[in-house]
């Protein structure tokens, strides 16, 4: 009962302060960005502008070759704005590029020169060999340039044959995947929930220290752990609310929300206990800031591994946010690995309990400082 009353009190205090709204506000901001600004999948297709400087028979062969590559199997008639004029062009969309066939050499050079696009003029000599004039912008990678050089050295047959001999074998068969946008969500949940929680609970403690209310609390029969736990309760609540604000509209019913709740509660418990423990060593937020900053930076590192699968050193897996990211991803996928999520939740609960016990021990000793 006392614990609940303390929780209500902390909630009242928090709701009248600024920190309480950071997470909620961030969640709403992220939601708006995700709904209206960030595309479902990041477009990595390059646009190329090409002029075919050759007789009709030649261009027919060439266009047929592109057509084979294109996804739709047909060209789209589009308008391209060139030098303030709408010009007709044919658009061929392939797996990794959008190829616009323009109708004049000048327009193509204009696109390269003024619009800074990748452009090429493809000609044909008397022996019916294609020759290529590429207009690059200078920011293309060396690999891309090399690719262009070798691309046309061999006849396309050789390349095709080589391609056919490469076997692409998916490592995980039958797994659900997230769109690029959805793939960012675990990272956002970890950052807005756990990392901000670590910082905000410390801020709450320092506010109380500054007001000296901890001393008054210490002279009541209510144990210190209830005071600390009531604060953690507030952080759990904001973490849950802000996560649901983001997930419900974006992921609808796909995630396993019950499992999500378990993971949110245990990770919030872990990170706010860590925040409490850190705060117990300092008098005010200015002194604590350096340490909190270092912890937050370390906890952000696993994001790099998360977004760059090629960089995945063993040590990064020890950082608690690593399993958090994996766990949230699994939950958001819906078809998630329940036993994995439950086992890391248990881990966070256990580690959180150790941190909480340490923090409780420290606060009992340092109430007046």
């Amino acid at each position, binding site marked *: 009962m006392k614990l609940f009353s*303390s929780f209500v009190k902390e909630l*009242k205090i928090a709701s009248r302060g600024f920190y309480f709204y950071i997470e909620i506000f961030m969640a709403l901001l992220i939601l708006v960005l995700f709904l209206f600004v960030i595309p479902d999948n990041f477009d990595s297709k390059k646009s190329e502008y090409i002029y075919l400087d050759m007789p009709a028979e030649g261009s027919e062969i060439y266009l047929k070759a592109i057509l084979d590559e294109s996804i739709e199997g047909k060209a789209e008639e589009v308008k391209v704005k060139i030098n303030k004029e709408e010009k007709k062009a044919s658009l061929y969309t392939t797996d990794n590029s959008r190829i616009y066939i323009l109708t004049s050499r000048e327009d193509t050079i204009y696109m390269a020169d003024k619009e800074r696009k990748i452009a090429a003029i493809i000609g044909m000599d008397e022996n019916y060999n294609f020759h290529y004039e590429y207009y690059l912008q200078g920011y293309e990678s060396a690999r891309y340039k090399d690719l262009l050089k070798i691309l046309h050295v061999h006849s396309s047959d050789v390349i095709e044959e080589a391609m056919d001999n490469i076997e692409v074998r998916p490592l995980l068969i039958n797994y659900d995947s997230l769109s690029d946008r959805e793939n960012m969500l675990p990272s956002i949940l970890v950052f807005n929930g756990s990392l901000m929680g670590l910082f905000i609970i410390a801020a709450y403690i320092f506010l109380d220290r500054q007001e000296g209310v901890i001393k*008054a609390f210490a*002279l009541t029969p*209510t*144990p210190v752990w209830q005071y600390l736990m009531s604060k953690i309760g507030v952080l759990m609540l904001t973490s849950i609310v802000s996560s649901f604000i983001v997930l419900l509209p974006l992921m609808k019913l796909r995630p396993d929300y019950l499992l999500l709740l378990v993971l949110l509660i245990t990770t919030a418990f872990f990170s706010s206990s860590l925040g409490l423990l850190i705060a117990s060593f300092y008098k005010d937020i200015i002194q604590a800031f350096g340490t909190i900053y270092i912890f937050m930076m370390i906890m952000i590192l696993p994001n790099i591994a998360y977004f760059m699968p090629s960089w995945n050193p063993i040590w990064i897996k020890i950082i608690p946010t690593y399993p958090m990211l994996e766990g949230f991803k699994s939950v958001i996928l819906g078809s998630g690995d329940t036993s994995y999520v439950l086992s890391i939740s248990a881990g966070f609960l256990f580690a959180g309990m150790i941190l909480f016990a340490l923090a409780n021990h420290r606060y009992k000793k340092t109430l007046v400082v």
Partner: protein
Amino acid sequence: MITVKNLFHSYNKDGNYQVKDVSFDIEKGEVFGFLGPSGAGKSTVQNILTGLLQLQQGEATLGGYDVKNMSKDMFNKIGMSFEQSNVYSKLTAKENLHFYGKLFDNPTRDPMELLKLVGLADKADIRAGEFSKGMKHRLTFARSMINNPEIWFLDEPTTGLDPSIAADIKDIIKQKNKEGITIFLTTHNMFIADELCDRVAFIVDGEIKLIDSPENLKLQYGDKLVKVEYFQGDQVLQKTLSIVLPEDKELLRNIIENHEIRTMHTKEATLEEIFIKVTGRGLI
């Protein structure tokens, strides 16, 4: 109700003691005061007794409980008004009292009743953050009564309050004492000590110099004083002289013989004058 034996305390644990060999007893129903200048160690002793500071050396009991391992139950029986007010600025006066009351196991007092007592009834729904210093202090004071404490610690209960409010607070303290509550207060105001305390301890540099009732002290140390105003040329000079100390008597005789006297009164020694005489130090 409170016993303290050979209490020492060093904040930095470096052999520099801020409290040195302090011993005293407080009877049930007594008002006991620590009178001393700033930095004397008054709050330190109180904080050790309430468990806010760890007891380092010596012995202390509170209502029969050893302070070293105070039982939860003891906290139901003590109240403390802090020298620096410490209330939640984001909560209203009433909420502050309401939530604090919830932390005790025994029946607590009605927040509104307490607010009325300290003259904050009309401010009950205003957040403490908007309070003046004196209002916060009164709220802190009111909060210390919420659990009907049997032992009441008051650290500088009237410091910084305007005289009429200070008078109200003094009346509340007297009233509570009549109800049989044991009170341990600290002050550097000799009027408070004189008016409220059954016994006072003079404390300077962490040491108790003496403990006695204000009446006894005045009888013992308060040998009669004479306050004399006299002319020297056009100037009016003023001196307070003892009629017991030989050098003062000599000086007084000298003044009467050689100067025109303007006024001359006998005067009882104040606690402050006794304090200065005993400790060699002022109260400020």
